[in-house]
């Protein structure tokens, strides 16, 4: 039987054939989809406690072909389809609609209270090798390539799965900022970032177009001010944590799918916009700008910051994720280097890609993982790592304890 695996390895399925920016029209009219509709409704309630948007829910399930059936795992409503080439696999990874609907029905009843509670949007750290073997069974070239990629990094990192919606790139980055960042970046320390929305908006009501996932009584500018204030507070709190356990607890508090998390994600988007506006200004003046800027504004749909906002950025989290050039913008705005292990590029020089790549040595690294450039997960260094956060080898301390010997000869 034909199966095809979508790019997503956790969270809800995203289309991997279309560009994520386009509105996918999430309501399939195909018959016999009632069970799917029901399961989708259940999932929507379970993982997203905010108000719904009519066509662009952030828990969008994409279905393109009637024969492509997702399977869900019991714990976190993860959806997946298996590879079209996976015919050689002995294991039947294929579950019918009825089976899925039944399972969800079973869960839905006892857990109806749980549905109201917040669900974690980033999983606890798990072993990469185990994960890889569980998710990528089968012997297709693709499976082997992806498993090889996982194996290459399994000794250095553990995996934190990030909920798979259109916010996942931002969410994974935010998670790394809060759980790994060692100090506040200069721009956060030196400026009062809460003033930035007003400044940006004063230029032709820039922020009029902004979309928020959760409604608020405030206007756009005030809402963004609140988001930035929260980001500053949380980052400071994270950096000041005295122990790893404290830090972990703090991150878990944030990543529960509640208002707080979405405000922080919107803050990141704002920073991207502001940086894009500044870079565009520099480009017009003729000053030096990083290479990715040319690509960012070369697209017909985003020739300037305003159109970038209207056509791209405001849809991030709703109907689209981040393109690679936008990942560069994100890294540049935060002054962090987002180092991504791209598993489908294993065995090529793009296996590890830095967004952006011009500050690898002086901006702290935030390490992410993607199997397909669509869904991103976070990587936590294993404690026994031999490399520091810049990728430089750590020296072993002297073994005999004497560290300032002087020897007469």
């Amino acid at each position: 039987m034909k199966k095809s695996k979508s790019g997503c390895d956790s969270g809800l399925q995203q289309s991997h054939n279309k560009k994520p920016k386009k509105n996918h029209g999430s309501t399939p009219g195909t018959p016999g989809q009632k069970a799917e509709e029901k399961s989708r409704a259940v999932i929507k309630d379970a993982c997203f406690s905010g108000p719904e948007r009519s066509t662009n829910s952030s828990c969008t399930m994409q279905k393109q072909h009637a024969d492509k059936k997702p399977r869900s795992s019991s714990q976190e409503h993860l959806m997946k389809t298996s590879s079209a080439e996976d015919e050689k696999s002995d294991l039947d990874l294929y579950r019918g609609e009825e089976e899925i609907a039944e399972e969800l029905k079973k869960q839905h009843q006892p857990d109806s209270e749980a549905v109201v509670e917040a669900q974690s949007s980033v999983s606890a750290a798990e072993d990469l090798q185990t994960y890889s073997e569980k998710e990528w069974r089968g012997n297709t070239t693709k499976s082997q390539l992806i498993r090889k990629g996982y194996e290459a990094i399994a000794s250095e990192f553990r995996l934190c799965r990030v909920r798979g919606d259109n916010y996942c790139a931002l969410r994974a980055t935010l998670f790394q900022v809060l759980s790994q960042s060692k100090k506040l970046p200069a721009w956060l320390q030196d400026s009062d970032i809460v003033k930035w929305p007003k400044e940006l908006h004063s230029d032709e009501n820039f922020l009029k177009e902004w979309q928020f996932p959760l409604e608020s009584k405030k206007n756009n500018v005030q809402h963004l001010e609140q988001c930035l204030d929260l980001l500053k507070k949380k980052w400071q709190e994270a950096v000041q944590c005295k122990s790893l356990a404290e830090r972990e607890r703090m991150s878990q508090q944030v990543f529960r799918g509640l208002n707080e998390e979405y405000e922080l994600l919107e803050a990141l988007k704002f920073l991207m916009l502001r940086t894009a506006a500044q870079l565009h200004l520099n480009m017009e003046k003729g000053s030096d700008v990083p290479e990715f800027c040319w690509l960012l504004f070369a697209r017909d749909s985003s020739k300037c910051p305003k159109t970038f906002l209207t056509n791209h950025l405001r849809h991030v989290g709703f109907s689209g994720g981040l393109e690679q050039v936008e990942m560069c913008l994100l890294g540049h705005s935060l002054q962090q280097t987002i180092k991504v292990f791209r598993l489908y590029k294993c065995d090529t020089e793009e296996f590890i890609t830095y967004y952006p790549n011009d500050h690898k040595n002086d901006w702290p690294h935030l390490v992410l993982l993607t199997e397909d450039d669509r869904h991103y997960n976070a990587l936590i260094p294993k404690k026994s790592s031999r490399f520091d956060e810049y990728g430089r080898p750590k020296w072993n301390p002297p073994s005999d304890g004497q560290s300032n010997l002087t020897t007469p000869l």
Partner: protein
Amino acid sequence: MSFIPGQPVTAVVQRIEILKLRDGDNLILGFSIGGGIDQDPSQNPFSEDKADKGIYVTRVSEGGPAEVAGLRVGDKIMQVNGWDMTMVTHDQARKRLTKKKEDVVRLLISRKSLEEVVRQSMMQR
């Protein structure tokens, strides 16, 4: 010697030839060394760059072979008889200097005051 990323590292060096002194069964050089990649570089009073894990001369015996040859306290030993000394442990450095079969050690050293002299003479042009 400090370094500026992106710029070539330059050093003013001097060659020093020490004839070891035989004292019974021992071969004496007449100086002491500190430093090494397994040592704590922040304790080094002679280095310009406190992360420099090189081998430095910490004492020179008065009238000993080293002093006679022109070695001075604070000199950084770059090479010994052609062997690199900038990336060695303390014990490796000691061994390279005290080989029983060698009567002579030819050192390549760098000295801050030397660099200053050269810099000044270049400025006077």
